[in-house]
């Protein structure tokens, strides 16, 4: 990390009091993944004994920022300071641990085959020698009792045997245990996502208690109510930058949502589609709710809401035609190319024609000439950048692999195309080309059902359904498709 700040002495002589109150701070931190700029110059100060709320929609850069703070990711540029002094040397996970920075990430990090106490030992190297297990047991039991009274977790329980909520409790309690060194900052990333209302309240109460002792806490949550009530200060992130930074008391739910949204709308879908067109798909999510989804011929239907709230399950439910009325052939475009999409051993051409093999048969055998022609045709139509469709699929960049998957679906006889967040990690140029293709195909009468995590993409839709906890909570028409409305619906408060 480059050190662009004045020397420590100059700074401390100038404003020693305010700096001593800083637990940790970031100055101009940037991070890029290939062409994607996840963090575009973030300044963040966490004061000692402060609970900082961090909000922003998916892809705003919150998780990347936390991974930088915890030393898991090295930023491309910027400075990190501890207690007001720029950190010398590289900021690694071990350095973060030594400085008392702990994190509880959304994807839990406990080893499922070890007991709770053994998992405590993993982060506390000092628990050595005879009787370490006893000390680990005492340490975690005491912390669990303190945060979550009546937790019902024994230190000798194996993680795999615990319910998801209990695992989360054990992980949170572990982050607050102290052996040697002090606890400086604890990052809680969606800590209440697997907790019930009672334990969530216990945690939030403990957060206030712990900050009063001088520990800083960063609270990331999609439940705006809990951020507003718990945090002292709230920072809003958008597109890899902090866009608002105020005292929690100065925010209301609405002003917070407004701060998260974007005003720029690059694209507007044309005139609303004929509402008398034939209904191609009608399905009610099996995962919850009573509202159902409807897609008419030639429509582009968006599925939105926070990631992982049942949108993919909805698509699979339609794909399997279980509890769904579907008229016509289906095709599925995967977003997770590696696990759901490409066939690594095959050429680009074979990857494109997979969905059309039956149609390419002549007297029982696949017509190789026709297959080659189809692949060639779609290579041109999708502008897949390759000299030869016989090259292996992995010779293509990610965006072009995704185009091949689009070609696979569009070249087929499917009239209904399901898309599972297909633009993940695709560059903007490719996206524009594919958007145009989708609209042209919809014009020709194909129906698209499109799960997207990028709210801007909804501007290409005729209608969007907002999902929360597996259920459809709102249906927004083309003229209502503003980021603010989508966020309002996504974040609507659960009865806490």
């Amino acid at each position, binding site marked *: 990390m480059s050190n662009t700040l004045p020397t420590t002495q100059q700074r401390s002589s100038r404003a020693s009091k305010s700096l001593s109150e800083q637990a940790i701070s970031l100055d101009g931190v940037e991070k890029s993944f290939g062409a994607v700029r996840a963090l575009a110059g973030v300044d963040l100060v966490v004061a000692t004994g402060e609970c900082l709320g961090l909000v922003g929609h998916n892809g705003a850069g919150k998780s990347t920022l936390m991974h930088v703070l915890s030393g898991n990711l090295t930023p491309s540029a910027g400075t990190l300071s501890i207690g007001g002094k720029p950190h010398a040397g590289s900021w690694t996970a071990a350095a973060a641990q030594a400085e008392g920075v702990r994190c509880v990430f959304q994807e839990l990090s406990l080893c499922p085959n070890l007991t709770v106490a053994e998992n405590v030992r993993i982060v506390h190297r000092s628990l050595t020698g005879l009787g370490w297990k006893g000390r680990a047991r005492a340490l975690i039991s005491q912390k669990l009792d303190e945060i979550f009274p009546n937790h019902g977790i024994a230190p000798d329980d194996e993680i795999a045997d615990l319910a998801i909520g209990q695992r989360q409790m054990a992980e949170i309690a572990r982050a607050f245990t102290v052996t040697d060194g002090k606890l400086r900052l604890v990052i809680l990333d969606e800590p209440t996502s697997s907790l019930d209302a009672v334990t969530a309240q216990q945690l939030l109460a403990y957060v206030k208690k712990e900050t009063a002792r001088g520990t800083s806490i960063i609270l990331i949550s999609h439940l705006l109510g809990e951020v507003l009530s718990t945090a002292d200060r709230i920072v809003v992130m958008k597109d890899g930058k902090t866009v608002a930074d105020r005292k929690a008391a100065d925010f209301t739910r609405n002003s917070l949502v407004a701060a998260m949204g974007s005003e720029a709308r690059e694209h507007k879908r044309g005139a609303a589609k004929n509402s008398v067109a034939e209904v191609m798909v009608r399905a009610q999510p099996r995962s919850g709710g009573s509202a159902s989804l409807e897609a008419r011929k030639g429509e582009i239907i968006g599925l939105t809401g926070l990631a992982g709230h049942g949108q993919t399950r909805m698509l699979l439910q339609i794909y399997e035609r279980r509890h769904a009325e579907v008229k016509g052939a*289906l095709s599925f475009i995967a977003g997770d190319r590696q696990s759901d999409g490409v066939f690594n051993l095959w050429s680009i051409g074979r990857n494109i024609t997979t*969905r059309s093999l039956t149609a390419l048969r002549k007297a029982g055998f696949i017509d190789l000439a026709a297959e080659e022609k189809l692949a060639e045709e779609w290579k041109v139509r999708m502008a897949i950048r390759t000299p030869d469709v016989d090259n292996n699929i992995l010779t293509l960049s990610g965006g072009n692999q995704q185009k091949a998957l689009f070609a696979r679906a569009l070249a087929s006889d499917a009239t209904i195309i399901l898309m599972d967040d297909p633009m993940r990690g695709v560059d903007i140029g490719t996206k524009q080309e594919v958007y145009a293709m989708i609209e042209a195909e919809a014009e020709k009468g194909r129906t698209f059902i499109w799960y997207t995590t990028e709210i801007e993409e909804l501007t290409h839709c005729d209608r969007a359904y907002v999902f929360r906890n597996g259920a459809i909570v709102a249906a927004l028409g083309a003229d209502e498709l503003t980021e603010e409305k989508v966020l309002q619906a996504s974040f609507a408060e659960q009865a806490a």
Partner: protein
Amino acid sequence: MIGKLLRQPWVFSFGAAIAVWLATIAYTGGQGAGAILTAAFSFATFTIIVGLGQMMVITTGPGNVDLSIPATITLSGVVAMKVMDEDTGRMVIGIIAALGAATLVGVFNYGLIRLLRIPPIIATLSSSFLVLSAAISYGRGIRIKPPEPLAQFAETQVFGIPIMAFAVLALSIALAMVLSRTVYGRSVLAVGQNSRAAWLAGLNVDRTRFLTYVLSALLAGVCGILLSGFSRGAALNMGEEFLLASIATVVIGGTSVAGGRANVPGIWGAALFMYLLVTMLNTFGASAGIRLILTGLMIIGVIVAAGGEEQR
């Protein structure tokens, strides 16, 4: 051109087969070179038939393997001999009965795998005990000769090459066609690479795997019938050596153990190599123990040599 040829994974198995053959005839001073080849083509054909079936199964993806091949060979041989009962007129019905029994084994295997969700290695192993027990109880103490035309088919040679080898060559070409030119064959390759992606691409994963296990059992059945014609009768241990042989030919032949990549020519090279290797060691006068050790080491050697050239 040569470079491209050398990158084909099956080149190694053929190269190894030729090297072993040359070493053998160098030792004998050129004597019996033709006879050794004739014998190799006779014995290797049986391995090739079951090797092709095993290749299809292994190609459908990690964890898929058919361990019931030896038992199915035995069952098919016993059923064929008993139904034919040395009567040429009953040959067709005997073949139908034997292949029918083999098909049932395949259906049963996939039933265990799919309906009871038993891993293929366990399912086919346990079904092989049931199948072998059935073969034993059905064929108890009976030694029946095959009808004369069947025995002749298994023994006739043209220019020193058994006609059975030609039949198996035709079968191999047909299977290669199936793999590249039919929806089923493409599905096998796709499912083997990524079954979830294959499902999402509209391919029928279940039907593909089902057909593949049935095909493997059916080929084991064909092997059982021909083998009992060749060795003049069925025996309860006749399938024994084909467990290792069927898997080894697939692996040595350059078929990907991770699935998704099949290699028909490689099965031929590998089957010939395995037979010629044993012949060579016999010629050298190696004892049974040394023979087994060297066989194992050379199989490992070929796999390492071939594996080093693969991209994955």
